[in-house]
């Protein structure tokens, strides 16, 4: 229910006094209301929930989080077990 999906703003327009956008999600384009993210720009990713953009994705922050994950465990990667097989229900599929 609280599902919200990131999509790229490809066009902005106004309808009956409301800021709207066409937002691309992979191969699908849908309209979204931009009233709650007045600073969103074309080309930016917004998080859309039930036809409303509720946040602009912070690209810098996204990159930082991702790099943090990539760097994690770098030194001890070799001695870590692959998967916890007993709990993972036997062999990997």
């Amino acid at each position, binding site marked *: 229910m609280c599902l919200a999906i990131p999509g790229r703003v490809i066009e902005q327009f106004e309808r009956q006094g409301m800021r709207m956008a066409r937002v691309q999600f992979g191969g699908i384009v849908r309209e979204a209301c931009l009233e709650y993210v007045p600073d969103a720009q074309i080309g930016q990713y917004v998080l859309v929930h039930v036809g409303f953009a509720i946040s602009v994705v912070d*690209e810098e922050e996204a990159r930082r989080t991702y790099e943090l994950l990539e760097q*994690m465990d770098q030194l001890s990667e070799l001695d870590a077990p692959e998967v916890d097989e007993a709990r993972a229900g036997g062999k990997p599929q």
Partner: protein
Amino acid sequence: MKYLDEYRDGKLAQKVVNEIRKVQTRPWVIMEVCGGQTHSIVKHGIDFLLPEGIELVHGPGCPVCVTPLEMIDKAHAIARQQEVIFCSFGDMLRVPGSEGDLFSIKSQGGDVRIVYSPLDCIKIARANPDKMVVFFAIGFETTAPANAMLVWRAHQEGIKNVSVLVSHVLVPPAISFILDSSQNRVQGFLGPGHVCTIVGYSDYEPIAERYHVPIVITGFEPLDLLQGTLMTVRLLEAGRNVVENQYARVLGREGNRAAQKLVEDVFEVSDRKWRGVGNIPASGLQLRSQFREHDAERLFDVGEIDTKEPEICISGQILRGIKKPHDCTAFGTLCTPQNPLGATMVSAEGSCAAYYTYGRHLKKEPELVSIAAPSPGGVA
């Protein structure tokens, strides 16, 4: 970056799992609050990837699940009326009331429509001036701004044939309710990322302090959930009862001010009954009196509705993290998504329905669709 696929990387997931294993020294019980998180965890088998002793229990954050049966019956009574076009998000249509669901009302001639956005109701109302368009406004804080905008626009534009049946709930009172219980097992929380995108997380700080629990506001992709778990375990191990934000690419501490403003203009806090749980004070929203002409509960007098839930259902305990779907004798036998007996089975985001959908009713620990060891076909 598309901010989706990157957060489903199996190799990175394994790194995070290894890190959790290094950090953890004792068992911990962590609750993910939101139903979307529950669904993602069960779908990707994240709970099975975690080291032994890190137990995820599933929270009350599925608004479809916690909408009381009498409210669903009320919606159905309104939807059956001739002059009504009843609009809803798709996930409410299969939720059974005491007699049938919205689909069966539609098949009997009722005008029931699924909408993508609440604003679609304005278009429908304009095209059907002789009908009353009723929108089933359910949801948590995430959905409240969209529903508030519908009411606000209808009010501003003088569109009289739009009304809303409000069943809005709020997360922080439910967390406090869980932590107040003498049976509580939860020691840390993965907080609801999209709820906090709207409201921020300052309201969670007094909860962390008062109940001595760390809360990590967390996203919905597998890597988000694993990283949120890692951050929570770190805080638990260090004895730090604070709020941290794993989902910083989407939200900040203050949330979305513009959305908060309109929600406050249209709604006010009220007591709400949660299905399976009961009444929780100040745990929901209702329309402010100036919008009463758009209040479907006032416009349609459907009389007293008396409902009875099956005694066998333990969804109330599941929603509070005290029990899990397998603890219920009806799970997967008497109670299935096709014939749900209670809150946690009625929506795909309920923990019983998620367990059932991903085959966990077949045996206790099923073969996993593991993101750490994907099949050659690339299941994820």
